[in-house]
């Protein structure tokens, strides 16, 4: 989609803890809105984002099964949280704690998706990085993308069953800051 993508720099950038990167897409995942923080951190202008698929900022070191889980969950009209590594226009990378929800019109129909991305908590991020390395390893052992995703989903499900949690409980359990009693 974007032939001008710069090579990865391996440089990590971040944004303010009091900021939220906001975007909205239509039902196909085409960007319909991006806030100024999105523009600043990703390095794209509004006009470069609107009408583009959201995977514009996808980083290659993200396990594909995370996005499969994301879309599967959204199709059920449920919210989902995920720690995601994004790539900026210039090849830099930034971690976000993404919260994606369906957007409903006043009649209750899903009209698109909304994403709020926050600076991730370090205690959660350390665990997530370890997990994603595992998932990427599993994914790349398989002969094709579909098999890789299936193997990763199975692995994730095994971990969740062992922990006695569903994915939502798991993702909130990763940081002490995402508990009910947290004040920061």
């Amino acid at each position, binding site marked *: 989609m974007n032939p001008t993508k710069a090579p990865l720099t391996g440089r990590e950038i971040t944004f303010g803890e*009091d900021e*939220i990167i*906001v975007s909205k897409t239509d039902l196909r995942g085409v960007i319909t*809105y991006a806030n100024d923080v999105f523009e600043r951190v990703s390095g794209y202008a509004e006009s470069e984002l609107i009408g583009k698929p959201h995977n514009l900022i996808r980083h290659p070191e993200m396990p594909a099964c995370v996005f499969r889980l994301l879309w599967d969950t959204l199709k059920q009209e449920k919210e989902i949280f995920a720690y995601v590594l994004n790539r900026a226009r210039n090849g830099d990378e930034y971690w976000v704690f993404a919260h994606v929800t369906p957007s409903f019109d006043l009649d209750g129909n899903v009209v698109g998706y909304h994403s709020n991305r*926050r600076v991730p908590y370090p205690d959660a991020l350390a665990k997530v990085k370890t997990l994603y390395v595992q998932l990427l390893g599993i994914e790349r052992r398989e002969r094709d993308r579909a098999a890789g995703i299936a193997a990763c989903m199975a692995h994730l499900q095994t971990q969740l069953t062992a922990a006695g949690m569903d994915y*939502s409980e798991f993702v909130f359990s990763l940081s002490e800051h995402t508990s009910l009693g947290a004040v920061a």
Partner: protein
Amino acid sequence: MNSTSSNSTLDRDAVAQALSVIVDTCERASQGDLEARVVGLPDHPELVRLGHAINHLLDVSDAYVRESAAAMAECAQGRFHRPILLRGLPGSYRDAALTINQAALRMKEDTERIRKFEIERAQVADRVQNTTQSVSTSAQTLDQTALQILGNAEQTKTLSDTVAASATATASNVSAVAAACEELTASTSEISRQTTQSADLTAAAVKQSHEAADSVRALGQAARKIETVVGLIHKIAGQTKLLALNATLEAARAGDAGRGFAVVANEVKVLSQETAAATDSISDQVNSMRQATSSVASAIDGVSAAIGKINDNAGIISASLEEQVVATTEIAKRVSEASATASQISETIVTVAQAASGTEAASIQLKQASAALFEQAGLLSQEVEHLNTSRN
């Protein structure tokens, strides 16, 4: 409406169009449509700032609404892992989010308490139900046992009546036997006394027959002595006859001078012949006497032997009688004991019959109690069932 101009001056139409977009967005948002955003304003610094400011306001409001709605939706499902994320929510939004998170935390604690209480209540209900069931089962068993005891008591009563009757009959039989024994003892004693007397008499008879035998023997001896004397006389008579014959011969030689003498000698000869004849007669008499004596002696011996035999038999009878007396005494003693035992059984069986009546009454009460217990357990079970049903 997208302007490519980057300078700060815009024509009135462009400004009006941008303001229209902004106003439209604000109106949609104020109607509760938080999807509205200001997008595609011309590249004019002031307008872009205005657009960003409005969008930021909407983003924060949108975030707060999505967060609080999603967090509360989870709470409504009884799940409390999902707080409102505080990052990116400033000021009043954050304060409100904190308040909601605290309320959710309180709901979580209450829910956990209620769950714990429900589990405890369920456990208590289960325990009560189990106990009730066990009580119910016990009551049924108790009922059966009471029935069995009742049956046993009735049987015991019947049996004790039978035993009492038997004991009475036995006592009466034993008394009859005791009386018979006493009579037997008395008659045995009488027989014993008479036997003893008879033995004494026999002994006297034996003694007398012995004396008779002795007398007969003495008679025999006397007869033999007589025989000896008779023999001597006979011998003397023979010698006398021989002398008389010689004297006759001498007298003949002497002639007439010896005539007188011849007469005497002849006389002597006749006398001696008579003597001899007399001794022969005596001898015959003595022989007859001896034969008679001998017969008497053997008759006496026969009598004596018969009496001896009688005496022996009398002794055996006497010994048997004594044994019989001992045996009869023993029988009498035993019968007396049996009589005492029968009386004791009679007394005891009355007590047993009374006890059986008591047991019968008690087992009837027990049966009533167990039926009541069973009914109570059933009611309790229904109560617990009701409790469990109302819980779900």
